C-alpha cells in the first residue's frame, strides 16, 4: 500500500521566528501524546506537567491547570 502525498507548497511566515507563546501552546500542549508523565522547565520557569491533563498557557502566566483527577498520571 502506498499513499501519494506531495502537497501544495506553503508560504512560510517570516523566517520562522514565531512567538514563544504560540510555540508552547502547540509543541508542548498539543500534538499526539504517548507517554504520561513529564517534569519540565520552560524558559527558567519550573512547571510540573502531570500526566495528560496539563494545560500550559504562556510563559508569563504559566500555571498548572489540572483536572480533578490530575496528578495520578494515569493514561487517558
Amino acid at each position: 500500500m502506498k499513499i501519494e502525498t506531495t502537497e501544495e507548497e506553503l508560504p512560510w511566515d517570516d523566517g520562522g521566528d514565531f512567538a514563544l507563546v504560540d510555540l508552547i501552546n502547540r509543541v508542548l500542549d498539543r500534538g499526539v501524546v504517548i507517554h504520561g508523565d513529564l517534569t519540565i522547565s520552560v524558559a527558567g520557569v519550573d512547571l510540573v506537567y502531570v500526566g495528560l491533563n496539563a494545560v500550559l498557557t504562556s510563559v508569563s502566566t504559566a500555571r498548572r491547570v489540572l483536572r480533578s483527577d490530575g496528578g495520578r498520571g494515569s493514561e487517558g
Partner: protein
Amino acid sequence: VDRKAEVYLYCVRAADHPPPDALSGVDGAPVARLVRGPLAAWYALLPRRAPDEAGLRAHEAVVREALRSATPVPFRFGTWFADEAALAALLSDEAERLLALLARVRGRVEMGVRAVERAASEPPADAPVPAPAGSGPGRAYLERRREALGAGARRERRAERIAGEVRERLEAGAEVLTTLLPDPTTPCELSFLIPRGEVVTFRERVAALQLEGVELVVSGPWAPYSFVAGERIST
C-alpha cells in the same frame, strides 16, 4: 547520571519523502526515518531532556520540514521510546488510527489567531458598578470577593465574545478550535484547519478584521498540533 540515547519521535507521515539530508533537530541529533508499510516516523536518537525554548524550536523546525511536502501528524515534545523496535511497534499496532489521522489532516495546515489586548485599552463597557462605601469589614471582604469573581467571569465572557466574533467572521468552512486563556493580556486563541493553498488569503482576512480593544496576531502554517491533541496512544 546515565544519559542513554533513546528514540525521540517528531511526527508520523506518509512514507514517500525522506527527511532532507543532514537535517538535525533537538540537541543537534540527526533526524532519521523509520518506515512501516505506508507510514514513516521521523525520529532521532537522543537522551531524555527537559524542554526549553531551544528544544521546542528545534522540534518545530523538524516538524516544519515534514510539513513542507505533506501534512504530518505531529507528536508532542517529549515523546521517547526505548528503541527503534518500540517505535516500529507503534507504527504497526496503531497503523489504522495514524492513517485515519493523516487522512483527516491531509492537504491542510493549522493557522493560529491570538487576540491580544491593546496596551492602552479602555475598561470594557460592562465594567463593574462600584460597591457602596462605608460598609463593615466583613461586608467589604465579601464585596471584594464578589468583585474578584465577577472580574474573572467578565473576562471570560469578554474572551468568549471575542472568540465568537473571530470565528464568525473567519470560519468559512474551516475547522476551528477555541481556547480561552487565563492570561489577561491574551483573552483567547483560535486554531483553524485550512487548505494549504489558502494560507495567504487567511492571513489577509485576519489582517482586515477590526475588533474593538484587541489586536489579532496570526501564526502559521503549523502542522495540525491542535487537531490531533485529543489523541492519546498507550504503548
